[in-house]
């Protein structure tokens, strides 16, 4: 773990650095940015570029890194928050997992008691397979966190205050729906065995990013068949109608060749076009992985004018922009 983090900071020393006094915190090299709401994220490792790959200009300011699939400590979270705090409060923006929530809540208490730093928390909960729409806030957070980072990051960058940034993050989250499929399990190194077994000719629909079970297990399906199973579900979930505008994210969970993601993207586009849903922007690649899991997820993000603007605002992290971006 620590070797991995050192490898990252060594790769991008002009853009990232360790939190002073805590080797599990990574923050923007130029943090704290004075006068800007700071955004902190964090979670278990094994999902790069989630979470730490989103530290950068126009995105988040710092990240706490836990062991594989486990929460970082509240103390790391508090330390990150202290060192990115630019005087206007800190937004905790992270995926909806129980262990992370407990630690972030505790960190918020520590910061309030000991440092007088204001925090708000928004948990991303976009996995439609984990709970119905009317209880969407109890969903797990998966790849759709990308859209929350991007829009909340842009909101903070343009000078919004803490409440506004949190509102954007919440709005983005409530308008994002994701569904994933897996062809193989992931192995948690600590346990050494796959979280569960999938046959060579089987796949699981709705699988979580730690190998949590999905909705159903089926025979292997083609990209077209998967899209036909997933896209209508997302459309329904977001109540999308003809003329609505969305951003599309086709995300690979680690062991899926990019070639296959683009085939999936074609099928997703075809289905959306059939429903006359307008595609404002498309992202295809590895935005949230699960160790060596083979699979992919499709996220739709229902846009409005403000969210479009925030989505298009400049941003930069060494994980998503090889050649820089701002």
């Amino acid at each position, binding site marked *: 773990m620590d070797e991995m983090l050192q490898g990252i900071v060594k790769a991008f020393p002009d853009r990232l650095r360790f939190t002073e006094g805590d080797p599990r915190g990574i923050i923007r090299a130029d943090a704290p940015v004075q006068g800007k709401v700071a955004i902190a994220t964090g979670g278990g490792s094994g999902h790069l570029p989630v979470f730490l790959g989103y530290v950068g200009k126009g995105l988040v300011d710092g990240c706490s890194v836990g062991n594989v699939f486990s929460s*970082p400590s*509240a103390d790391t979270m508090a330390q990150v928050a202290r060192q990115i705090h630019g005087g206007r409060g800190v937004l905790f923006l992270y995926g909806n997992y129980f262990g992370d929530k*407990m630690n972030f809540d*505790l960190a918020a208490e520590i910061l309030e008691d000991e440092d007088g730093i204001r925090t708000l928390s928004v948990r991303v909960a976009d996995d439609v397979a*984990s709970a119905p729409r009317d209880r969407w806030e109890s969903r797990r957070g998966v790849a759709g966190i990308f859209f929350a980072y991007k829009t909340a990051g842009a909101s903070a960058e343009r000078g919004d205050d803490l409440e506004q940034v949190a509102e954007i993050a919440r709005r983005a989250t409530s308008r994002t729906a994701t569904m994933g499929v897996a062809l193989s399990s992931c192995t948690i190194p600590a*346990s050494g065995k796959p979280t569960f077994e999938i046959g060579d000719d089987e796949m699981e629909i709705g699988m979580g990013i730690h190998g949590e079970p999905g909705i159903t297990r089926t025979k292997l399906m083609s990209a077209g068949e998967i899209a036909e199973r997933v896209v209508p579900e997302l459309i329904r979930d977001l109540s999308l109608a003809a003329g609505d505008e969305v951003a599309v994210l086709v995300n690979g969970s680690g062991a899926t060749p990019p070639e296959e993601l683009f085939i999936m993207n074609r099928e997703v586009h075809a289905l959306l076009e059939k429903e006359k849903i307008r595609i404002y922007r498309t992202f295809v690649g590895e935005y949230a992985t699960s160790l060596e899991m083979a699979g992919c997820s499709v996220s739709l993000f229902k846009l409005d004018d403000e969210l479009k603007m925030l989505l298009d605002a400049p941003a930069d992290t060494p994980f998503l922009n090889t050649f820089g971006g701002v």
Partner: protein
Amino acid sequence: MDWRQIAESLPEFAEKNRAVWNELDAAQGDGDLGVTLQLAANALADAAAVAGTVRDWLLEGGRAVRKAAPSTMGILLASALIAAGKALPPETGELSSRDWLLVQKTMAEEIMRRGGAQRGDKTVLDAFHPAIEAYEEGLEQNLAAEELMAKAAEAANRSAEATADMASKTGRSSWLGERASGRIDGGAWFCYQLYEWLALKLSGKA
């Protein structure tokens, strides 16, 4: 009862049982409960070595657990220990059976507050609550310290076993649906084992 002595032997207690805890957690979680509890035990032993009073130990030990073992059980334990430390009057020396009751009750309350779980959600609470009730009953009957712990352990044992029939409603295992049914909750089982170990300790047998 000498809290320092208990604290010092916690790592040994964890070593003996960590494999079972991991195993139970693996069946319906991520298999790290033993690791978590070992880290917590080590942190508590280290904290005891430098703590002046039991109150300090609980406060500083809780903070150390928070850092060393940030998984669900770790953080719940950590918060609960800190809360218990705060609840004890500063002048507390060795723990009386009444003090012990206060510690247990405060811890259970803090676990409920922070974790948001109820009895029946298939957590450590499903062993902890019945244990505390048994302890309190015994206290009214004026049982001796080791008898109190033994009585609590017995109650915890029965109720931990009963978690096998429960459906998990919180934490990681709640996502597992079918895959987790029929299994004892690891946290509940740990709770029983801890009481049993404390009973042996108090009776001088461990």
